[in-house]
């Protein structure tokens, strides 16, 4: 691939009178895993929200496959899977219903893989339990099950490992490694050290902080 | 001039209260709309100048 999947040029963002980052630039190519680092409040979540297209409050350019993101929104959104702060799981619905709804709003999520995905994340047997009676970690795993049933190229994950036990983390790392190996790209923030994912590109926001 | 005397002008055939009341309200709203932004500008300038001094000091 000649063009990087995602290219960020001269990104500038301020919140509440504070410059979070300025002149931020990087390329993300296919098969790359990028970890955004930074102390609390350094704008990691804000950056992920900007990259995913949730927040438009920034200056600079983000290119998707060589074109400005705003111009190729449809293509970009169908190749993107975003995992945010909140798990995005409805407490009143069962895991299966949650995932079915996700696959209805996102064509890259394959509905026939739901059962398989739930089994992998260790929620087999909980298919018809409403999510509000599951634990926080289990709720996150419901949301993470989307990673196992999608064909999206780019994953943007905000703290995907919180509230997940050691064994789960290892499985997630394997999943990320597989995704990267098959040509997908990942941008994530995490406090864990990624040990088994192969090469990790790191972007540190602390060094970019403005005056 | 529609009125002969000053008192006629003020009473307006018994409608003086209403006429003068509404002109009073009207003029005060107009003046308020001109004066308030000017006051606000003064305040704003002051606070921004203070801020600028503070920033210059810390640098």
């Amino acid at each position, binding site marked *: 691939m000649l063009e990087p999947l995602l290219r960020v040029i001269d990104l500038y963002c301020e919140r509440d009178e504070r410059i979070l980052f300025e002149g931020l630039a990087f390329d993300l190519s296919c098969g790359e895993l990028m970890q955004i680092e930074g102390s609390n409040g350094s704008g990691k979540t804000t950056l992920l929200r900007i990259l*995913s*297209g*949730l*927040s*438009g*409050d920034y200056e600079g350019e983000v290119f998707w496959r060589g074109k400005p993101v705003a111009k190729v*929104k*449809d293509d970009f*959104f*169908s190749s*993107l899977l*975003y995992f*945010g*702060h*909140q*798990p*995005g*799981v*409805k*407490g*009143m*619905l069962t895991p299966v*219903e949650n995932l*079915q*709804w*996700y696959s*209805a*709003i*996102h*064509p*890259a999520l394959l509905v026939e893989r739901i059962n398989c995905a739930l089994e992998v994340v260790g929620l087999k047997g909980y298919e018809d339990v*409403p999510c509000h009676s599951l634990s926080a970690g289990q709720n996150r795993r419901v949301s993470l099950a989307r990673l196992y049933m999608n*064909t999206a190229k780019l994953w943007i994950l905000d703290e995907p490992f919180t509230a997940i036990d050691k064994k789960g983390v290892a499985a997630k790392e394997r999943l990320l490694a597989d995704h990267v190996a098959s040509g997908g790209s990942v941008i994530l923030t995490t406090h864990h050290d990624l040990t088994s994912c192969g090469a990790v590109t790191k972007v540190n926001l602390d060094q970019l902080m403005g005056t | 001039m529609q009125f002969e005397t000053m008192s006629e002008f003020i009473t307006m055939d018994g409608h003086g209260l209403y006429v003068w009341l509404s002109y009073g309200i009207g003029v005060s709203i107009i003046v308020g709309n001109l004066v308030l932004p000017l006051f606000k500008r003064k305040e704003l300038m002051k606070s921004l100048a203070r801020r600028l001094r503070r920033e210059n000091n810390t640098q």
Partner: protein
Amino acid sequence: MAELCTNSAESSMRKLFSAVLKRDLLLSFRRKSDLVNPLIFFVMVATLFPLGVSPEPNFLAEVAPGVVWVAALLATLLSLDGIFRSDYEDGTLEQVILSPQPLMVVCLAKVIAHWMTTGLPLALMSPLLGVMLFLPATAMLGMVMSLLIGTLVLSLVGAIGAGLTVGLKRGGVLISLLVLPLYIPVLIFGSGAVQAAVAGLPLEGYLALLGAMLALGMVLAPFAISASVRISVSG
């Protein structure tokens, strides 16, 4: 992926619409209070009038159209905040925005679901209130019809306010401030329809006007709703 691409855009829209509608209906049926509370409120507000003003049948019959409509309007208003609030809080709303599917269709489906769980039961229950307020039996049909059309307009317009305030901690009072002035035409023609029905005058004109508002709302409101939701979530 292949079979999704071959599907026509229209049928995928329809699938999306029905999926969102089904989910929202399912959610309200799981949480019964969402369904029942506006109805109880509706009846309570209507009960306040005889207690607060006068239980005299002639007087009540005269004010009944207005009372029923105001009560329905307030009941809808109370339930508006819930359209997007829980989706916003648990993060599903941002997932909707990030999906390649058109947000407008999702919003419209959510509004229809909201109407089916508030406006529709309100309209169907209104004859009960009509009886309590001595509304003549001949006016019942007019009342139900005007409420059926009118409450859908209320849901459409109200969803704009709900979308604008969903990012705010205390959106409840603000919603009413934003939305109530916009509700006035619906109130006027809605209660006008009931009054005409009481007087035995033809209803078609009123229902046509309400229908025109509904058509306008159906065309324009989804734009405004999706824009406002996007603004709120991006903040």
